[in-house]
């Protein structure tokens, strides 16, 4: 079952870079305007490269059976795609540095709100997306016992759940607030401890939900198989 093609290595590098870019982008107030915009531009390029490298996924969309797991993956990816496009568009409209030369005059009202929605939904969706493909990471750390991995994940997830509440994600995801509270005084490590654990929460949920869904499908298939034998 080795699906490692020539591009596998590049793919992983791009995936890691995108994850790092996402974390960098979430800390807007820590790095300043210009760095945020450049990171966004890099993310745009990585996003395009990611799609080129994984174009086979789009080609296979119409083929094969849709298991619950596959439905989940496709739905999350579609939503994530929308969130990313929303971020790119709104970021370019509000740009003061990198894309300021573009003759985009209006749309600020929409862009301002869209950028909050895209940022908070996008972060969650990206984490879920990561979680649904977490097996790629698990393969790399397969020497660590499953129980240890589960407990480490659980610890991060529990703290991540606290962060999800304390950082008002629900409020921003439903645009109950039109301006994000940005703490410019917060230490960088504290911010990233929170955001990495929050990412961990959604990776954890998605990863184990994925495993459960696969088991469910397998059980059904087995049942169907047994029934056929009995007939």
């Amino acid at each position: 079952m080795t699906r490692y093609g020539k591009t596998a290595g590049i793919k992983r590098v791009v995936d890691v870079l995108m994850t790092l870019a996402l974390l960098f982008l979430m800390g807007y107030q820590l790095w300043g305007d210009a760095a945020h915009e450049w990171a966004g531009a890099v993310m745009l390029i990585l996003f395009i490269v990611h799609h080129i490298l994984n174009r086979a996924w789009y080609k296979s969309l119409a083929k094969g059976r849709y298991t619950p797991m596959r439905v989940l993956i496709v739905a999350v990816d579609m939503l994530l795609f929308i969130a990313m496009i929303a971020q790119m568009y709104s970021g370019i409209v509000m740009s003061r540095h990198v894309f300021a030369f573009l003759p985009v005059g209006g749309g600020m009202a929409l862009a301002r709100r869209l950028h909050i929605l895209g940022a908070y939904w996008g972060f969650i969706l990206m984490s879920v997306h990561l979680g649904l493909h977490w097996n790629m990471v698990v393969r790399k750390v397969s020497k660590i016992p499953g129980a240890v991995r589960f407990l480490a994940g659980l610890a991060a997830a529990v703290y991540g759940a606290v962060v999800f509440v304390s950082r008002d994600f629900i409020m921003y995801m439903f645009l109950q607030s039109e301006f994000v509270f940005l703490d410019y005084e917060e230490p960088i490590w504290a911010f990233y401890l929170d955001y990495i654990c929050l990412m961990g929460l959604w990776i954890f949920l998605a990863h184990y939900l994925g495993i459960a869904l696969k088991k469910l499908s397998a059980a059904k298939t087995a049942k169907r198989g047994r029934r056929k034998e009995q007939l």
Partner: protein
Amino acid sequence: MKKIIVFLMVISVLCSLVGCSGAPSSETADAGSSEGALMPSESAAETLSDPTASGNVLIAYFSWAENAVLTGEVDAVSSPSVVAPGNVQQLAGWIQEKTGGELFSIRVTDPYPSDWDDCLARANEERGADARPVLKENVENMDAYDVVFLGYPNWWYGVPMALLSFMEDNDLTGKQVYLFCSHGTGGLANSVDIITEALPDAQISENIFDCYEEEAPQSQEAIESWLAELGY
């Protein structure tokens, strides 16, 4: 690759067309703003029986309400107050009553749209260009003041660029500066750092007054207890 870039550009152009429907032209600029705003420094001077009793306090503030073109149709619900008295203007008034200082309204020659989103759009442009909007007037006798209360709203996680114009055109070297701010859910954001950077030679107190814009009209007591902490 090209296709994708073109596709993204098409989308962004389409979206921007949808978004930029009703930006009011700023042609009517100067007419609107000045007539509503009473000359604050004059009215303040009148109420003072003895100028020296003011303790040499200046209350300089930027209020959107005094820097906007009023078009008549203002959405008062979903935005800070653009109708006089503005949020910051009101706070400044209470500080004046308590300290007996002189009010100075920081006003730009080219007022902002009275639509909150349009106003933010221009504010964003000015921030990007690191602009210094031209002010109508500066403080005449800055030397006469030892204490400056500086008030502003949070615009784009910072201050309106006119505040930077003010801080550069008026020498606040050696002054005791107290900040007060009216903001939305963004809080003080980066505003204090921006001001601190612009005023390296002033004494900026860490005791800052800030309130949510919707609570500004009910903040008289809060601001008075803040003033009491400062010794007024």
